[in-house]
C-alpha cells in the first residue's frame, strides 16, 4: 500500500539528518589542541575565569592567573619559589629611616607603543589606593603617603611608616599606561604578551609582544579556555582541546589522567589554606580552651588523606613552608580525642554544645564540613551545617560578622597579617600578635622580620585562633609534550612565557 511509504520516508530523512550531523563531527578534527605544532598557541584550561579585566573594580584570582606577569608587569616580580626580583624597576634604594624608596625604571614600552615612565608608576599606584578601588594589597599598600616622579625614569615613594614587605607587595601592582582609556575590554601593559582576543564566558587569547624588553616568549601564544564545570575542564584535557590545566580542584580525576599515560601530573605547593574559622568574639569560641579542644578533636591527617589522597601538607598555623616565619607547628595542637575531652571539660562544656557552621557550597567545603561534624560528635559537640553561596558568605560572614564558625580557603600568600586586624571577620584580638607583626613590618633585616612573624605564628597556633586543617597541594596536569609549566601556586600566579610544546 502506498500509504506506508510516507512514514518510512520521514524516518529515513530523520536518520539521514542525524547521520549528516554526526558525520560533520567525524570528518573534522575533534582535538585541535594536541595536534598542533610549535607555531600553534598553547591551550590552557582553567575554571577561574576573570570576572573582569580590571581588578581595581573587583577582581578574582582569574585575572592574576591570566594577566599578572604575562600581560601586565609590576615593578617587581614574585617568582615561582616565592622570591622577589626586579622587573620594571631595575632595583631600589631605601633611605636611612626606611621611609623613602627610590625606584629607577627599566627601558620598556607598553603595548600601545608608549614608553613606561615614572608618570605611569605614579598613576598605577594612586589608582590602587583610590577610595573605590577593590584592588589586592590595597590595605597594606596604604602605608604609601606620597608617590612622585622625580624624573621620567625615577619614582620616589614615601611611606608613613616602615614596611618590610612593601617591595614584595609591589609585585602585585600592575604598571598601567596612564593614557589607557578602556581597561575593561582591552589592556595596555608592558608584559611579554598582548591581549589578542577576549571572549567573556569562554576565552582569553594572548599573542607575544614583539617589542618586549626582556626574554621573548618561547611559545607562539597562549589561549586560556574557561570552564565552569570541573568535569568539563577535565574532559577538555582528556580529549585534547586544551594542553594543560592550571589547577585541579579535587584529586578525583587523577586516576583518569594517570591511567591514560598521556599526561604529566605536576605537583607543587600552593598558598591555599583550608580553615575552620571561629568567630573568636562570641561564646563559646571566645574561650581558648574550647577552640583548642575542637582543634585536637579533628584528625587532620585522615581528612587530608580523604580529600587530597595524601597530597598537600599538614600545617598548624597560618604560615606555609614557602614563607618567612614558617615553623613546623602541625602537632602544636595534636590530634588527641582524650585531650580534647579534657580541655572541653575544663572550659565548662563537659556535656558539649551545639553550633552552626556556615559553609560555602563551593569546592570541598561541604565535604570537609561533614567530616568535622563527624569528628566533633565524638566530643559531644553538635555541628549544624548551614550551606551558603560564596557571595552570601562574603555578605554574612565577612561583611556582617554574623556567624559562629565557618569554612574558608585562604588563597593569599603572606596573609598572617589578617590575625593582626581585630576587625577581620574572625575577630582574633591579641595585643602581642599585633605588636610583633607591626615590628616585623618595621624590621631592619629579613631575618628579624622572619623571627617576629614566627613568634606571631606560634602565638596564634597556641591560641588556636582558627583551625588550620591543611595546605592544599597545587596540582596541574599537562599533556606529555608540554614543558615549562609553573610548578607552584603562589597565590594564583601562572607565568606562561616558558611553556613549550614538543
Amino acid at each position, binding site marked *: 500500500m502506498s*500509504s506506508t511509504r510516507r*512514514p518510512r520516508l520521514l524516518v529515513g530523512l*530523520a536518520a539521514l539528518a542525524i547521520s549528516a550531523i554526526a558525520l*560533520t563531527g567525524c570528518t573534522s578534527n*575533534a*582535538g585541535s589542541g594536541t595536534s598542533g605544532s610549535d607555531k600553534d598557541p598553547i591551550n590552557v584550561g582553567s575554571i577561574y575565569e576573570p570576572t573582569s579585566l580590571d581588578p581595581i573594580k573587583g577582581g578574582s584570582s582569574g585575572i592574576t592567573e591570566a594577566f599578572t606577569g604575562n600581560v601586565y608587569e609590576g615593578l617587581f616580580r614574585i617568582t615561582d619559589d616565592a622570591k622577589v626580583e626586579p622587573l620594571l624597576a631595575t632595583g631600589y634604594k631605601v633611605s636611612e629611616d626606611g621611609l623613602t624608596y627610590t625606584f629607577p625604571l627599566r627601558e620598556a614600552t607598553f603595548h600601545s607603543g608608549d614608553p613606561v615612565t615614572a608618570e605611569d608608576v605614579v598613576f598605577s599606584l594612586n589608582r590602587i589606593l583610590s577610595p573605590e578601588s577593590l584592588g*589586592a594589597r590595597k590595605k597594606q599598600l596604604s602605608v604609601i603617603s606620597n608617590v612622585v616622579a622625580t624624573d621620567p625614569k625615577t619614582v620616589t615613594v614615601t611611606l608613613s611608616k616602615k614596611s618590610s614587605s612593601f617591595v614584595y607587595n609591589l609585585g602585585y601592582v600592575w604598571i598601567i599606561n596612564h593614557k589607557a582609556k578602556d581597561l575593561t575590554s582591552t589592556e595596555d601593559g608592558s608584559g611579554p604578551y598582548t591581549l589578542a582576543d577576549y571572549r*567573556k564566558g569562554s576565552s582569553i587569547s594572548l599573542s607575544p609582544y614583539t617589542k618586549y624588553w626582556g626574554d621573548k616568549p618561547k611559545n607562539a601564544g597562549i589561549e586560556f579556555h574557561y570552564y565552569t564545570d570541573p*568535569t568539563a575542564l577535565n574532559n577538555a584535557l582528556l580529549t585534547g582541546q586544551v594542553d594543560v590545566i592550571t589547577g585541579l580542584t579535587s584529586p578525583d580525576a587523577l586516576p583518569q589522567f594517570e591511567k591514560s599515560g598521556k599526561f604529566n601530573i605536576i605537583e607543587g605547593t600552593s598558598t591555599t589554606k583550608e580553615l575552620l574559622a571561629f568567630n573568636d568574639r562570641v561564646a563559646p569560641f571566645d574561650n581558648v580552651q574550647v577552640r583548642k579542644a575542637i582543634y585536637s578533636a579533628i584528625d587532620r591527617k585522615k581528612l587530608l588523606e580523604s580529600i587530597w589522597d595524601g597530597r598537600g601538607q599538614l600545617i598548624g598555623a597560618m604560615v606555609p613552608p614557602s614563607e618567612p616565619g614558617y615553623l613546623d607547628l602541625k602537632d602544636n595542637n595534636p590530634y588527641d580525642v582524650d585531650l580534647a575531652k579534657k580541655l572541653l571539660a575544663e572550659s565548662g562544656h563537659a556535656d558539649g554544645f551545639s553550633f552552626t557552621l556556615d559553609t560555602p557550597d563551593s569546592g570541598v567545603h561541604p565535604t570537609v564540613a561533614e567530616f568535622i561534624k563527624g569528628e566533633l560528635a565524638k566530643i559531644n559537640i553538635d555541628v549544624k551545617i548551614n550551606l551558603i553561596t560564596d557571595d552570601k558568605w*562574603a555578605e554574612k560572614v565577612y561583611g556582617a560578622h554574623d556567624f559562629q564558625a565557618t569554612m574558608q580557603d585562604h588563597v593569599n600568600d603572606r596573609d598572617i597579617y589578617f590575625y593582626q586586624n581585630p576587625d577581620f571577620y574572625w575577630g582574633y584580638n591579641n595585643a602581642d600578635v599585633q605588636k610583633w607583626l607591626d615590628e616585623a613590618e618595621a624590621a631592619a633585616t629579613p631575618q628579624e622580620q622572619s623571627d617576629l612573624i614566627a613568634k606571631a605564628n606560634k602565638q596564634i597556633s597556641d591560641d588556636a585562633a582558627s583551625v588550620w586543617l591543611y595546605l592544599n597541594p597545587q596540582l596541574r596536569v599537562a599533556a606529555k609534550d608540554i614543558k615549562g609549566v609553573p610548578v607552584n601556586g603562589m597565590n594564583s600566579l601562572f607565568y606562561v612565557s616558558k611553556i613549550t610544546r614538543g
Partner: protein
Amino acid sequence: MLLSLALAVTVLFVVLRLLGNPVYALINLEATPEDIRAASAALGVDRPIFVQFADYIGGLFRGDLGTSFSSHLSVSDEILRRLNVTVPLTLISFALSVIIAIPVGFIAAWKSRTWYGTAFSAISQLGGAIPVFWVGILLVTLFALNLGVLPAGGFPRQDWADPLDALTSLTLPVLTIAIVSGSELARYVRSATLDILDRDYLRTARALGQPFSTALWRHALRNGIVPVISILAIQLATTFVGAVVVENVFALPGLGDMLIAGIRQQDFPNVQGVLLFSTVLVLVIGFLGDVLQRLLDPRLRSSLSGNRRVKASA
C-alpha cells in the same frame, strides 16, 4: 503582551535585589568597610531601589540594558555576541527534534498495536524523562571520551568563521536537546494523531472511497496541525530554555552561560538583560504561533471577525 512584559521587568528587578548586595561578589578578603561602601556607590546600588529602578527603566526606553557589574562590559553587546551560539543551537535542535518527533509520534499512534509502535512510544517516554544534562554527560562519555570523534565542549573562538568547526562544536549539544525535546514533542504528535485517527470525518472520507493516504493528507493533517502549532511554539521556547542547561554542560559561551554566571556573581544587569531578552523572545514566539494558527484555522478567523461585527454594531 506589553503588560506581561512590564510585570516581568518589575518582578525581576525587585526579586534580584532581594538576593543581597552585589558588591560582595566583587570584594577580596582585604576589603575594608569603607572600600565596600565606596564600591557600592560606584555600582550605584547604594541608592534607594526606586531610584535604581527609574534609572533602569529610563535606560530600557533608550535601548540601553546597562553595564555588567562584574566585567563592566555593555550588556546588550554581550547578549548579541552570545546569540551567535544560542540561536543556531536552539534552531538546529528544534528542527531536528521536529524531524525526529513527527515520524516517531505518528508511527507510535498509527501502529500502536504493533511491536515497533509500542517501542517508539516507550522510547519517547524514556527520552522525555531523562534530565537533559544527563543525556549530555552520556553523549560526552560516548562520543568524546570513548570514541574521540567529537569535542567534549567549547566553541571556536572565531565563532562562525569556520562553519564546519562551529557545527562540530554544536553537534553533541544539538543531539542532547533534540533527544529530550524530540521525545516530548513525539508524545504530543502521538496523542494528536490518535485523536484524529478516531475521528468520524476520516472514516467518512475513507467510506467515500479516498485512499488512506489522501484522507490523511487532505483532512487529518489540516485538522491535526492546528493544536500542534501551539505546542510547537511552546516547544520552541522550551528548547531555548533547554539550551541554557546544555550550554553549561558543554562549556558553550551562549546566553545560558551568561545567565548562570550572572546569577552566581550577582551581576544584576546581566541577569536582567538575559531574562528580559528571553521573555520578549518567548512572548514573540507565542504571538507568532497564535497568528499562524489563525491563518490555518478558518474557525478562529471567523470567531475573530464575529467579535468585530458585534463590536461594530454595539
